């Protein structure tokens, strides 16, 4: 090695290095990136060449992308340290609950489908009420309760309404994306024997009965309900503090 130290072109991509740093806790940022840089320069780059060495580095970065570290990356981007420190668990739990509710509804629809003619006739009757059909309103109520509760808890813990908005917004978006991915995967698995992948129009069919529009819709709903829950959480916390001081 020359005495001037490693040159920049011998380094992995700077953006990948930045992503890795953002995924790591501050305690490990220098040590881990240093270890990987050393391996990259001394072993991987000489044996594999620049392109494959960079791919190796990206694979290593990806291996640090756990749920917790992704939240750390989000806080890095939003400059909201408090979000990661105190809210990543509640956001993760709310996201998983939203996905679970949506998937439960999907499973009901798959294994016990509603006859559209029957539904039409039922709606035409005078005594029709949505409340007689819990499958239609229960998931919406459950998702709303989860997002309100998540927003309330986040604001109560941090004393900031915006944290409720952020936690519920991220939870609803992530939960719905997980749901959409699993619904598409279920379509692929259930039809792959007759309809092999490769034909673009056939691939698009896998999205046919998946409500992809739910993602932006629920993201918006998450922001609104998270803010409402956040107001309650903030008020509860303020009341508790006032009581303890008075």
């Amino acid at each position, binding site marked *: *090695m020359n*005495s001037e*130290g*490693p040159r920049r072109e011998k380094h992995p991509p700077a953006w990948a290095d930045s992503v890795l740093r953002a995924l790591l806790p501050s305690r*490990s940022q*220098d*040590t*881990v*990136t*240093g*270890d*990987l*840089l*050393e*391996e990259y*320069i*001394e072993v991987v780059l000489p044996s594999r060449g620049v392109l494959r060495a960079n791919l190796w580095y990206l*694979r*290593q970065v*990806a*291996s*640090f*992308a*756990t749920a917790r570290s992704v939240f750390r990356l989000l806080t890095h981007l939003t400059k909201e340290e408090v979000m990661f420190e105190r809210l990543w668990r509640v956001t993760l739990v709310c996201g998983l609950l939203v996905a679970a509710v949506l998937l439960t509804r999907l499973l009901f629809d798959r294994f016990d489908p509603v006859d559209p003619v029957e539904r039409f006739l039922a709606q035409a009757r005078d005594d029709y009420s949505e409340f007689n059909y819990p499958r239609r309103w229960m998931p919406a109520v459950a998702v709303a309760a989860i997002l309100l509760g998540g927003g309330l808890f986040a604001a109560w813990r941090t004393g900031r309404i915006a944290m409720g908005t952020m936690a519920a917004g991220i939870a609803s978006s992530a939960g719905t994306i997980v749901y959409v991915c699993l619904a598409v995967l279920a379509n692929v698995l259930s039809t792959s024997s007759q309809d092999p992948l490769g034909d673009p129009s056939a691939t698009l069919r896998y999205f046919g009965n998946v409500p992809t529009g739910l993602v932006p819709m629920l993201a918006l709903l998450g922001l609104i309900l998270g803010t409402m829950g956040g107001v309650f959480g903030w008020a509860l916390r303020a009341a508790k503090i006032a009581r303890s001081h008075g």
Partner: protein
Amino acid sequence: MADVLGAFEQAVLLSLVRPVTELGKEAYGRGILTEVQHRLGREVAAGAVYATLDRLEQKGLISSELEAGTAVRAGRPRRCYAIAPAGVRALNDAKSAAERLYAGMRWPLRVPR
């Protein structure tokens, strides 16, 4: 007995007890990664090793200290690890648990008919 160590945790701890590779003897993250890969005979993701090291340190089974960095790593410090007495005890417990589990078996095991 505390919770028994997983196979990967055992591999990481064993790499600190008796490393066989030159790099492994230096007991910092990169060396441990090399050592674990050598022991398991397969490529291992760096993230898995560092996450395990963090977990073991939180459990008090290993300790670490920072050492100065070298030029090749752009001056970034190295974190060197050492196994703690609790780590040695945990390895002994894991070995005993495995031996109890397999006690009385005749080797090699055969598929029952």
